[in-house]
């Protein structure tokens, strides 16, 4: 009998490969980030085990991984590692975000950013970590010095100090009367630079010395100035409002009139001469190639597009070098010589990524099959750390030493064994536009059912062909997945984005149908088993196309989707600028009401002949829950076949891991029922 059981157990273990479920795809990464020390001897890994963060040190020579710090030891709520920098090769400085609970109610809760400096030579049992009490920023880690770093203290007057790590106070330790904040190191002896004003940003030369500074000069507004021998010397630019400039001009004219009467030479207002009042809000963020040239932003941009400019304060020239319509630009990096922009960090609804630019300043996001980013390099350049991601790789850190490459860590270890899939990149002609699509095929099946997944947005957002958890989850369940970068998508040209204007319920849907029709010609796709599912705009497209093309789509799933475009165009959460943007890109609720109603699923459901899955979070602030309830009402009224999932306290992106897992589990069950 035991032999039969053993045989059965062996039979099933060999023949049934367990599919990875939603839990595997939507869990937080096991390795959050990796950081190479400047001498290339160590890599710090920020790990995450069921929500508990820790630091492990990988020794490049010994190839060993040692835990040195566990965040449970600092007993703080909801800690997040925002950034990490090696201070030489011993100490790792972590910028951590903390939730500080208020006294009476949660309304007082605030997020606080702290520095936590971890000693990599300590052990997890006896961790050693230091804190910095003074408010400021580490501006130079002094890579060749293991003990010291440069710290810029914020304040009405700003100073830079050279601090010794071992003299700092231990993190979280209560102060006694004998303890001095930061080991009493913030004193003149350790001071290297002093600016009489509140510094907003320090600009460093390649050798680490402060070259220029952006600061508020007391009573005179913002200034950009050069620094020499630790002090402000030449002013590069001054910011004056139109009114301030007018007042200064009047004052200057009066002064010069008096001088003229006296027979003196007229004087020139230096600050007035420096400023450029017509373009007063171009602010420098990163240093470019010369003293007067910077990469920066326009704080008073009138349109919805976020732009990085190359600013020449001497010539008073402002040239756009990077634009983003839908994604928020959070940071950017110039190339080493400062002559071009090398990368831009973008974020939208919590999703963050980096766009690397080629020599001509073009985005490389959609150009290569393999995403490879150098995240660290030793000073000598003999050791590098790369982040690699592609359709079959959810993200791994690769260490290169002496021409030999090894995989150091996987961001999602639980996905290491997921089945490989095939990626097909193709283009179709839709009207006069070339539209790209990505088809991912599970390798196992001959003819597989298809799920079409239009992305959200719709304007400026795009799908990339690298790893996408939602797509790969559906592939793992045995479906081919089609994603279309329809007109209006970002990542291509500005003209292509503009082509999406007022095509919300028209041209964009046409592109999705055309791409689907192209894919259905393939022998490996079962054209009789096609469903469409999407989030946000993708949910809208899924509902509309299920309505309009029952001959193609056997079912549809709308997750946080728009169902009433007129209601969306009147959303009171939109600022006046966003409201104007919606008028221009989607439609004007005053003058185009009939059109907006004609492309709204809630006024068209009588024609629905295929089952629909409706999923929405009650705390969705982008597409209000009312959209789902209106759809539910008309589906009930017209006695249509539908399934409903309402997630309490979930937002537009289903931020809680458990919610996202529930959404995709429900979607998988729904698809299995209808395909």
């Amino acid at each position: 009998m035991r032999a039969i059981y053993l045989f059965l157990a062996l039979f099933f273990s060999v023949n049934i490969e367990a599919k990875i479920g939603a839990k595997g795809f939507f869990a937080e990464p096991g390795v959050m980030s990796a950081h190479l020390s400047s001498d290339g001897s160590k890599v710090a890994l920020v790990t995450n085990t069921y929500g508990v963060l820790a630091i492990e040190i990988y020794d490049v020579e010994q190839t060993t991984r040692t835990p040195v710090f566990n965040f449970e030891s600092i007993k703080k709520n909801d800690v997040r590692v925002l950034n990490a920098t090696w201070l030489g090769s011993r100490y790792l400085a972590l910028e951590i975000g903390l939730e500080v609970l208020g006294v009476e109610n949660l309304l007082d809760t605030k997020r606080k950013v702290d520095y936590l400096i971890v000693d990599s030579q300590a052990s997890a049992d006896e961790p050693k970590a230091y804190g910095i009490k003074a408010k400021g920023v580490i501006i130079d880690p002094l890579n060749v010095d293991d003990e010291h770093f440069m710290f810029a203290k914020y304040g009405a007057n700003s100073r830079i100090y050279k601090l010794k790590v071992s003299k700092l106070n231990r993190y979280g330790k209560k102060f006694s009367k004998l303890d001095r904040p930061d080991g009493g190191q913030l004193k003149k002896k350790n001071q290297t630079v002093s600016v009489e004003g509140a510094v907003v940003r320090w600009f460093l030369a390649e050798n680490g010395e402060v070259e220029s500074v952006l600061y508020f000069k007391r009573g005179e507004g913002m200034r950009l100035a050069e620094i020499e021998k630790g002090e402000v010397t030449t002013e590069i630019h001054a910011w004056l409002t139109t009114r301030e400039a007018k007042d200064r001009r009047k004052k200057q004219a009066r002064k010069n009139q008096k001088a003229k009467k006296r027979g003196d030479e007229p004087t020139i207002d230096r600050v007035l001469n420096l400023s450029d009042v017509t373009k007063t809000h171009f602010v420098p963020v990163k240093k470019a190639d010369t003293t007067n040239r910077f990469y920066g932003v326009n704080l008073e941009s009138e349109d919805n597009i976020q732009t990085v400019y190359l600013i020449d304060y001497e010539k008073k020239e402002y040239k756009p070098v990077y634009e983003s319509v839908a994604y928020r630009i959070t940071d950017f990096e110039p190339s080493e010589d400062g002559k071009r922009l090398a990368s831009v960090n973008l974020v939208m609804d919590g999703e963050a990524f980096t766009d690397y630019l080629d020599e001509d300043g073009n985005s490389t996001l959609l150009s290569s099959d393999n995403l490879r980013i150098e995240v660290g390099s030793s000073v000598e350049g003999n050791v590098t750390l790369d982040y690699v991601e592609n359709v079959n790789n959810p993200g791994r850190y690769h260490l290169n030493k002496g021409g030999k490459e090894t995989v150091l860590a996987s961001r999602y270890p639980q996905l290491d064994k997921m089945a490989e899939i095939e990626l097909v990149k193709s283009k179709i002609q839709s009207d006069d536009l070339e539209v790209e699509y990505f088809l991912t095929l599970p390798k196992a099946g001959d003819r597989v059912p298809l799920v079409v997944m239009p992305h959200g947005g719709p304007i400026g957002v795009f799908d990339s062909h690298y790893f996408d958890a939602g797509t790969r989850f559906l592939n793992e369940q045995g479906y081919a997945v089609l994603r279309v970068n329809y007109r209006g998508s970002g990542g291509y040209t500005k003209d292509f984005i503009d082509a999406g204007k007022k095509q919300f319920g028209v041209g964009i849907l046409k592109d999705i149908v055309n791409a689907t029709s192209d894919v259905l010609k393939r022998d490996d796709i079962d054209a009789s088993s096609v469903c469409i599912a999407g989030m946000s705009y993708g949910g809208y497209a899924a509902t509309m196309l299920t309505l309009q093309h029952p001959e193609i789509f056997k079912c549809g799933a709308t997750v946080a989707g728009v169902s009433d475009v007129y209601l969306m165009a009147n959303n009171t959460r939109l600022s006046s600028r966003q409201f104007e943007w919606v008028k221009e890109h989607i439609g004007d609720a005053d003058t185009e009401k009939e059109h907006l109603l004609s492309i709204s699923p809630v006024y068209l459901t009588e024609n629905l002949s295929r089952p629909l899955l409706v999923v929405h979070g009650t705390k969705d602030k982008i597409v209000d829950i009312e959209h789902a309830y209106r759809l539910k009402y008309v589906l009930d009224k017209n006695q249509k076949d539908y399934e409903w999932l309402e997630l309490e306290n979930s937002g537009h992106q289903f931020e809680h891991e458990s919610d996202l897992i529930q959404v995709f589990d429900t979607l998988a069950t729904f698809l299995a029922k209808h395909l």
Partner: protein
Amino acid sequence: MKKFIALLALLMALSTSYPASAKKRSPIKLQSIEEAKAKPQRIKESEGWVLVHIDASSPAPSIDVQRLLSRVEDAKTLPSGKKIEPCMACRDTNISFKNLSPGYYIFPMRVGVYQITNFNVPYYGLPYIQDTDRDRRFRFRVGEGAISYIGHIELQKERTSNSAEVAYLDRYATANDELKAALSQLNFELPIFYGYGMETLFQMDPIGGKE
């Protein structure tokens, strides 16, 4: 002398007349459904009931409203994007939500079309005011002989930043079951009138009224 008396009378009239935009402290008393069930307020002939869902959390949240028109049917004629002069003798009214727990509230208001002109969300050092007097998205209608559901108002202090979150949302479909429940508690024998915005486009089955 006659001239002097006339001038004096004019001066006195001018000094006592009310400017159209002058603010009047709220005489409006909001009642929860339970309070209205136990002891409903008296309603005048020219007034209708207003039903609103409120979720406000700051020390003294309130809105300012202005009556633009006396006839609900004329709402569609109002232009958008510019400030509308209030109707004759109409004054700004401040409706305070101080110390109100989240839920439905009912109160009488004169029949007509209203503009929410300001959202006030003071929070210690943050005197947040959102000016909405030119924006037609912030209008509602109060119908005659009905309970006008005017939507959901959210006035929240943001947890993590020095800003306030303000929303005025049409939740007629989402709140449909709750509205039926509220109406059954009230025993007013009046139908619910969909008063959010300037016109009703999304049609739903009527709620309430005499059988």
